[in-house]
């Protein structure tokens, strides 16, 4: 069935058969690479997007569930020319190693700053708790989010 929704501010329409998750749709017909597959069980954070502004995993959510809603991915945060403050801060702090977890973490970090522009460290860690980083760059990421909050 066709599903229409807003993706990073623009209207999109995608054929969504049964079994197609939102992540499948984003990485497949919609051609994005930011949201990543990590587990398929909403347990690692790699696939996070915002749905109507709320950070949510996309790997197990049927694509049809976002009909009429607004989906945001890391691609919608900023560009190299005009980075989102969290993207700029992650580069300044060199917050990452392999980087595979970053797309989801940046989405959650940006959503946190939307609702709480001045979080303390505990609030940042709580917001990033659904995300796994196996390389061990978490402390840099927390510093980056706090830096982005100061810069915004």
């Amino acid at each position, binding site marked *: 069935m066709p599903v229409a929704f807003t993706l990073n501010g623009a209207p999109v329409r995608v054929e969504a058969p049964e*079994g197609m998750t939102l992540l499948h749709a984003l990485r497949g017909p919609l051609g*994005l690479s*930011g949201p990543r597959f990590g587990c398929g069980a909403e347990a690692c954070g790699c696939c996070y997007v915002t749905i109507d502004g709320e950070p949510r995993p996309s790997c197990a959510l049927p694509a049809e569930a976002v009909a009429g809603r607004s989906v945001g991915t890391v691609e919608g945060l900023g560009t190299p020319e005009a980075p989102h403050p969290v993207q700029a801060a*992650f580069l300044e702090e060199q917050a990452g190693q*392999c980087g*595979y977890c970053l797309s989801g973490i940046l989405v959650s970090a940006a959503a946190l700053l939307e609702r709480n522009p001045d979080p303390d460290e505990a609030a940042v860690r*709580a917001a990033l708790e659904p995300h796994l980083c196996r390389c061990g760059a978490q402390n840099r990421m927390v510093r980056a989010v706090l830096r982005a909050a100061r810069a915004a």
Partner: protein
Amino acid sequence: MNLAFGFPLGQSGNALDLPGSLRAEPRLSRWLRFAPDGTVTVTPGKVEIGQGILTALAQIAADELDLPIERVRVAAAATPGSPNEGVTSGSLSIQESGVAIRHACAEARAIHLGLAARRAGLSVAELRVEDGVFLRADGTPVGDYASQAEEALLEVEARGDVAPKAAGARGVAGRPRARLDLPEKVFGAPRYLHDRRLPGMLHARMVRPPARAATLLDLREGPLPGGATVLRLGNLLAVVAAEEWAADAAAARVAARARWDLRESLPDRSDLPAWIEAVPTQRGEVARRDDPAPPAAHTVTRRFARPYLAHASIGPSCAVARWEGEAVEVWTHSQGIYNLRADLATVLGLEASRITVRHAEGAGCYGHNGADDVALDAALVARAHPGRPVRVLWSRAEELAWSPHSPAGLAEIEASVDAKGMLCRWKAVVRGNGHSSRPGRAKDPTLLSAGYLDPPFPLPVAIDAPMAGGGGGQRNAVPGYRVPSLDVSMHRLLEMPIRSSALRGLGALLNVWSIEAVMDELAAASGQDPVAFRLRHLDEDPRGAAVLREAAAMCGWPRAGGEGVGTGIAMARYKGTGGWCAVAAEVEAAEVVRCRRLWIAADLGEVINPDGAANQIEGGALQAVSIALKEALDFDRLNVTADSWDAYPVLRFSEVPAVELRLIGPPDAPPLGAGEPSLGPTIAALAGAIHAALGVRPRAMPFTPDNLAAAME
């Protein structure tokens, strides 16, 4: 300068004299090439596995060539053009690839500058290089790399007669540098192999049996979504579809339609030490010294156990393959493209020359994970679809449960101090499976799916590299502390029910912990402070003593504890030949043990990118916190059951300790690698901290309430 053969470098014509990987590949053109647009492309055989090596190698090249780093490109490795640098492992990429590129670039600079000088009728000494331009003393340009790019000047073998810049003359290497790969990763650009989309590409999923030892009896037919098809090769099952959602959906349906004969093949998880002690082994002497030793005043005899561990990379392994006639091209995030090619050739029955293996970045790699295995999967599935690229992505269950695992092990140590409180005897026996099942090293392939084909290939039992090559299970089994009587042996298991291979640190995880735990106990038994006791035995290892003193000073050793709070400290030189690292850890023990703070001091010799090295050292330490406090691979007699993040939890943001870190190595000393030195000392420091907090000395990893309760008995 290396005068080991009694004559200056470069006159021998002997590649064995050349530094780093230039020994394996002396031809300069295989390491770098200039382009008319003013850039240089460096072509290492080592690969980016999330550790930032591409950036460090670019820094080295920029320095030696006097080129801005913005004009240095680093190409991903591919057969057959790239130098064969073996495997990207062992914290050796700077030592092997970096040193080769440094010398190759120094020679390339000299060759190009020499030609420019001859053409200008000047001596080389009258010229300098700035931003890739050759300048006279007055600043007049007489040539540049770009205009000489097409003169094939680098189609020569390295001579080893051009000294690279001295440490003090380097402007780029040795200073923090932003990672070249990070911007694309921060903006979600398609940089990973997982993101590769080739025209006509198909998506495949493997359908694994519910047991390691399984025979496919029957596969019920039925409709599959999205036009998906099934491929059966002996006991190997895969589904293929044009779209990824259909491949996922089809895999679930086919799994439910397959009927298998299942056989128990795994050991009893509830008593791994008993199994390890019962399996036939090959004994190897690791170190022995029989100097006269004073009589023992205090003796400690202890046995330490560790479980199987998973790599637990955040991104599951992925590969793409495409056949054209009797040749196949494979895109992989393998650590060793030539080694993979060798095993692919065996399984596919092809000449290696018909296989092209191209590296592309994957998610974080901490050793021999599923990257090589999934490359075979892709090649096998793609053979059934000639001309079409086929992308195979493993599931989370495959990544955790079917990748090679870091093997369980036991370390038994009997050690004594004399009446003066000095070590006098040390005996250690380490048992476990070998830590290498890497491909390309044996007659039979080590790739997972090879064992499920018809006929199956026998899976070789994992081996350990010799100590000269860094060792495996015996890595770091020899204490770095001076002791007159020493007897260390390794007993490698000759059966391998769970495929075992290299995970970051290898044997050092168990061995550094067990050595440091015994050192703590001997210090306590002889009434000495653990730091002072260690320092008394490090008089021949000033750099080891320096990192230990530094970590002690950073944490304010000796630190007072409190209710359930304590600090431990430990030190090791990785592999006995790599970087030194000392770690102090503070834990808080309530229902579970939580690590609150880490203080880390490391001497890694020359550091190319201090920020990158700090990232690696901290990342290794945090992975070790996760391993020490949380991780153990569960399985039953049929299969590994740790197939989800619920079943194999790793450290989360709320559990990450604060980290303070200092790199104190001399910049003019040889580089020693940053990826692995911090893991062993972190585990050991946590064990010491648990004793300080709770009065119990851990005997089995991970340091969970159950294992700590058992240690109290």
